[in-house]
């Protein structure tokens, strides 16, 4: 029985006896760690938001450790990846995407420069060993992740050096060799990784042999064989396929004579872009890229944009490469077996009856240009030799995210038909290693991360200070050579400043907004991390479910869920 006080004064803070939590009738706030859009878009599986968070706290090495948990080669991917993370970055819709690749590259370079240790332990002497075919980015990633997961890795590479297309098909202007070797060698030097060079599958090894000898076999052969190219049956006699041309140039430093004239490159990937620029730099009168995709712009659907590193496209245009988009070569005009001209027709991807997009050429848009050389760059496929029985057509088509194509056999990287980037190969390597590790310890395949993606409309952008993307110096066109890296580095202070631009989409910023703005004092701050990784807990005894914290959470980390009885 409450006894009245004289004058009916009440004791301080006794309102705590009255639990307003039962006022919540429709919704309650919860912490939801959604996937940042960058993370969701990253083929390598990096959580950029997570390592940017560490950078925001000036923890540079921790950021790198967090990064290499997924991708052991940030110095490489920071240079060569078309960074879909930046395309996906929610900051694009505010004041420009974060310069993620620049910071990634800086972290990779810092690790090499300062000799930071990879977060791996030497595998046990009796640890299972995984055979890996191909020392390209997919194979290297797979080997690294095997070691990270406590296994040993033995790599078999056909060429005398590791690196795969990183070494053979990417010009040093994009990926200087010291940057590549710096990172690659550190990985190969990790205890538990053995590299066997000049070991070609089919010649020196067989898949079955490897299966018998090793705990698992990871196939990362890449795509070596150019796809067949012809225009309505016609093939020029002096055909030079783009990738081959690029490799030759990188090996010997020379191009065919015809490359001095007007050149048409037909295709739409980074190889096409590289060869265009090399030919132009090597003295071609003109270089024109014909691509069926579109150039980035308001009228272009995201899935229709030309699949190249955006800055490469920009640089190519700076260097005078002409680009004819939404077009294809519809006819070759031959003088004997030599090409003297091409007919070009406009096209676009249009949805058909079944809703699937297909290319539609528009009659009446044909035009003819005279050329001295046509270089097709329409992609490569797996050299089928030694993979009999595993290939499905030109590629591997595993039906699972881990690349499993047979018992203890996994396919990773470009050899999988729907890949095509270094980052995807690195991601494949990790997933395959994780699946192997699970399988070997008798567990089911790892769970896929199916958390929702935090989009821009889930954020409250009022809380973010406007700041423009870091400007990174580039070599002027006149100073660009075949060796010097075109894009410059960013400094530590620039990288840390860029990190401050990260919106922390879907993850707690520890900004105190919920704690500051709860009218009911029902958000409690913790000095230690709370169970859900934030610094706050909801006191549902008093939370009335007004939704203010949900609305004012900058990152979308607080979301409303229906209140249940």
């Amino acid at each position, binding site marked *: 029985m409450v006894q009245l006080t004289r004058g009916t004064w*009440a004791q301080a803070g006794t309102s705590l006896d009255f639990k307003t939590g039962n006022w919540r009738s429709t919704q309650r706030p919860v912490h939801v760690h959604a996937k940042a859009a960058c993370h969701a878009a990253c083929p390598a599986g990096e959580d950029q938001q997570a390592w940017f968070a560490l950078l925001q706290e000036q923890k540079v090495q921790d950021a790198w450790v967090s990064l290499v948990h997924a991708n052991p080669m940030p110095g490489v991917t920071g240079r060569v990846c078309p960074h879909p993370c930046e395309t996906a970055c929610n900051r694009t819709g505010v004041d420009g995407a974060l310069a993620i690749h620049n910071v990634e590259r800086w972290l990779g370079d810092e690790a090499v420069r300062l000799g930071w240790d990879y977060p791996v332990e030497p595998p046990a002497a009796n640890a299972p060993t995984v055979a890996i075919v191909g020392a390209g980015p997919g194979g290297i990633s797979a080997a690294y992740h095997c070691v990270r997961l406590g296994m040993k890795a033995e790599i078999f590479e056909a060429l005398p050096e590791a690196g795969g297309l990183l070494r053979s098909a990417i010009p040093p202007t994009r990926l200087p060799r010291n940057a590549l070797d710096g990172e690659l060698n550190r990985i190969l030097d990790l205890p538990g990784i053995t590299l066997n060079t000049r070991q070609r599958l089919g010649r020196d090894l067989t898949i079955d042999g490897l299966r018998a000898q090793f705990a698992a076999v990871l196939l990362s052969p890449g795509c070596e064989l150019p796809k067949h190219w012809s225009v309505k049956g016609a093939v020029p006699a002096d055909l030079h396929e783009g990738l081959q041309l690029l490799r030759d140039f990188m090996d010997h430093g020379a191009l065919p004579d015809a490359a001095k004239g007007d050149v048409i490159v037909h295709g739409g990937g980074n190889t096409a872009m590289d060869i265009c620029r090399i030919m132009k730099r090597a003295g071609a009168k003109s270089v024109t890229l014909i691509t069926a995709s579109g150039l980035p712009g308001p009228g272009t659907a995201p899935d229709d944009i030309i699949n190249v590193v955006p800055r490469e496209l920009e640089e190519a245009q700076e260097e005078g490469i002409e680009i004819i988009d939404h077009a294809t070569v519809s006819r070759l005009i031959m003088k004997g077996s030599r090409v003297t001209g091409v007919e070009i027709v406009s096209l676009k991807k249009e949805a058909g009856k079944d809703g699937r997009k297909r290319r539609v050429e528009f009659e009446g848009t044909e035009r003819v240009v005279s050329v001295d050389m046509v270089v097709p760059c329409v992609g490569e496929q797996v050299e089928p030799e030694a993979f009999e029985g595993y290939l499905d057509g030109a590629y591997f088509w595993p039906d699972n995210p881990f690349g499993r194509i047979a018992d203890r056999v996994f396919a990773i990287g470009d050899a999988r038909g729907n890949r095509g980037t270094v980052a995807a190969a690195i991601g494949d390597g990790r997933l395959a290693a994780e699946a192997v590790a699970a399988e070997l310890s008798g567990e089911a395949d790892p769970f896929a991360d199916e958390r929702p993606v935090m989009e821009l409309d889930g954020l409250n952008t009022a*809380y973010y200070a406007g700041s423009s993307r870091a400007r990174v110096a580039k070599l002027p066109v006149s100073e660009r050579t075949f060796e010097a890296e075109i894009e410059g580095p960013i400094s530590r202070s620039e990288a840390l400043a860029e990190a401050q631009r990260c919106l922390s989409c879907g993850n707690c910023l520890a900004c105190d907004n919920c704690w500051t*703005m709860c*009218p009911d004092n029902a958000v409690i701050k913790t000095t230690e991390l709370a169970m859900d990784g934030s610094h706050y807990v909801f006191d549902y005894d008093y939370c009335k479910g*007004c939704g*203010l914290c949900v609305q004012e959470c900058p990152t979308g980390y607080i979301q409303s869920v229906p209140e249940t009885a």
Partner: protein
Amino acid sequence: MAPRSDTSKRLSELRMKHGRPPASPLEPKAEKAETLREAQPRFRGLESGHRACQGCGEALAARLVMESAGPDVMVANATGCLEVFSTPWPQSAWRVPWIHSLFENSAAVASGMEAAMKAKGKNTKVLSFGGDGGTYDIGFQALSGMLERHHNVLYVTYDNEAYMNTGIQRSSSTPHAATTTTSPAGKERMGKRHLKKDLLSIIAAHHIPYAASASVAYPADLQRKVRYAMGVEGPTFLVIHSPCPLGWRHDSALTVEVARRAVQCGLFPLVELERGALTNIMPIREPRPVADYLELQGRFAHLFRKDDYRAQEELDHLQALADHNIETYGLKGEGLDPMDSTGMSHVRRGGPLAGRS
């Protein structure tokens, strides 16, 4: 008169020096902290369990004020929502000495409390709280008297622009054209016919050391103003724009958003006045149209009726009033002030950006 104790003197000096109250020896000690709630790194002057509506702007504002002002304070509180929802006997949400007397006398009661503190040689600062009804209207005389007599009291008015406690009746603080239960919109009327009283100018005319407006949308700014006022010896005045989801008819989650837009459109300018002179403003980088602010609120819904020619007229009128504020107070500022109505909101990992070096 009793000699001032050493402790009081020390507190007073620190307060003058830092512009904010240092922790009082009376502050509940952390050693008692057995729960997370007790271990909170802030003074819980207005505790949970109060009975404010969901998303109450006034509760938020009062909580923020208490955090910055407490614990060495005592409060006189006018009748109104804040009083009713915080102290239904036998409970109280306050953790400072607090008294509610009447609707119109909180400034006078606070005057008496302050006189008592002076007489007893104590430095406990007295706060006086009232809503807009209790301040702009019925308690205005007592407030004016308190300011004129130069009592060392911080008066805070939680401005939710109508008599909410009695069920949303118009006050002299209700904005022009807003509907309330005593200024409904109809065939003959478009909500309140008169203007929102320019109270701050009247307060400023008392020539007091410090008067300011603040908004729940800008907690860091609000708390800075409270701390500044706490350090001033003499009467200080703070009007805090505190949205009322019930009376303004907006979603309870939008309290801060609504308040922010009020500032960003210029209808509720955030200014500081010392001795009656304008000394600081929160600039608005790019003023938003008033419609952005009004459209969130049911009390202005009649201004968005396409079939009524008067709607556009009143919208234009409110826009003109906002423009007038922007002009009068120079709210566009000069250059890019990071502490403008955009910058003040900014956060970064670990807390608000404002006030950090």
